[in-house]
């Protein structure tokens, strides 16, 4: 694709970069004791945690880098970080 003058980039183009490949530990959303506080959504630097249904959250492993903030911030320990077997 020819460069635009000034190497202007079109928006919404970083989705192709699947940062999930960086991960060592992966979050497991147990969806057991979730209170629906959304701290996991709010505190995800990737913005890849989402609501599946009421009080059930999960994350998009295509982008999750496995930082573990969601697991630390979850008040009810409903998210567990496990070593990923790739």
């Amino acid at each position, binding site marked *: 694709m020819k*460069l*635009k*003058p*000034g*190497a*202007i*980039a*079109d*928006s919404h183009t970083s989705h192709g970069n699947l940062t999930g490949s960086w991960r060592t530990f992966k979050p497991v959303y147990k969806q057991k004791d979730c209170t629906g506080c959304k701290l996991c959504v709010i505190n995800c630097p990737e913005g890849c945690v989402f609501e599946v249904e009421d009080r059930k959250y999960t994350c998009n492993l295509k982008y999750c880098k496995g930082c573990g903030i969601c697991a630390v911030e979850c008040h009810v320990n409903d998210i567990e970080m496990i070593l990923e077997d790739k």
Partner: protein
Amino acid sequence: MKTFIEGSRAVADAVTVCRPKVISAYPITPQTHIVEELAKIVANGKVKAEFVNVESEFSAASVVLGSCATGARSYTATTAQGLFLMAEVLFNISGMRLPIVMTCANRAVSAPINIWNDQQDSLSMRDSGWIQLYAEDNQEALDMHLQAYKIGENKGVLLPVMVCMDGFILTHSYEPVELISQEDADRFLPSYQPEDYLNPDNPVTMGAMVGPEAYMETRYLMQEAMENSVKVIEDVANEFNNQFGRYYGGLIDTYKLEDAETVIVSLGSVLGTVKDAVDSLREKGEKVGVLKVRSFRPFPKDAICEALKGAKKVHVLEKAVSIGMGGIVSSEIKAAFCGKTGVPEIVGSIIGLGGRDITVETIIGILNGSGDSSYDQFIDIKKELVEDPEPSDEAVAANA
């Protein structure tokens, strides 16, 4: 109808009829009269523009970068130290392909501090990716601003344009000039309509980080745009001539060059003096002529070689020096001739630095070879300022 007006004010008037939306500048001699006049014009509502008084030239260049990227035609002006403070932004503006127009009121560069004219400032910004045009007189300077926007905003070019006019010699001199009416300007210069700009309805990212996989191509495309501008500069000069009946050359211009054996090449206001010298030598039957370089970037290699191919000797008057190499323009002309046959003898003559007067007599001396050439390419060097004094007889005796 001609108006008797100072060069700076004529330029401010020309910028006004280009309908800039944002003007930003920081005061520096000898650019001040241009931006003072523009501030007054904006204050009086003659043009609907934002005039942003910044805290440095760095911010002046950054403000017009931001405004041009938002789709607003933008203008700034500076000189010498201010131009150098802008240097980082200048490369950024051209890399982002923003067709800003800036006046450079050419001035010497510090140290030692010197506010008078030469062209060391703009010539040192040679590689910044800006188109550089040099005006010979005030009429050309004011006309050049309309041409500059039209050249820079051309879709095949999209590069910033620096209009260079000699500080004081042009900026502060009064000459009768034809000012341009708003109606005529609008007919010549369409409004600025960029394809991509900062706009929430169609968001784009400007200034992304480009790695080894594409950086070279950004530079190739800038070089290609500069090459495209060669034709655009000529076309715009002709369009201007068609509408206004004024023509100063496109990339170059010539004066009594057809049969000239000895030619003077130069840029800017000194050409007026050069033409006087040539006229007086022509009266004596000497075959001398003039080549004016109007565009320094893009450098008109082909046009210059074609124009000089019949000459035997070419003197390039240089108001700047690349210390450690010599004349800048003469080096480039020599490079342009490289590999060609029938190359004239090309000599650089460094002259007029820091505002030193350039007289008709000096130029005649250069042309007929009677001038002093004992200081490399430097013309009219004052011996007592560069050489140790002769020791006195007493001192010689004492040491004996």
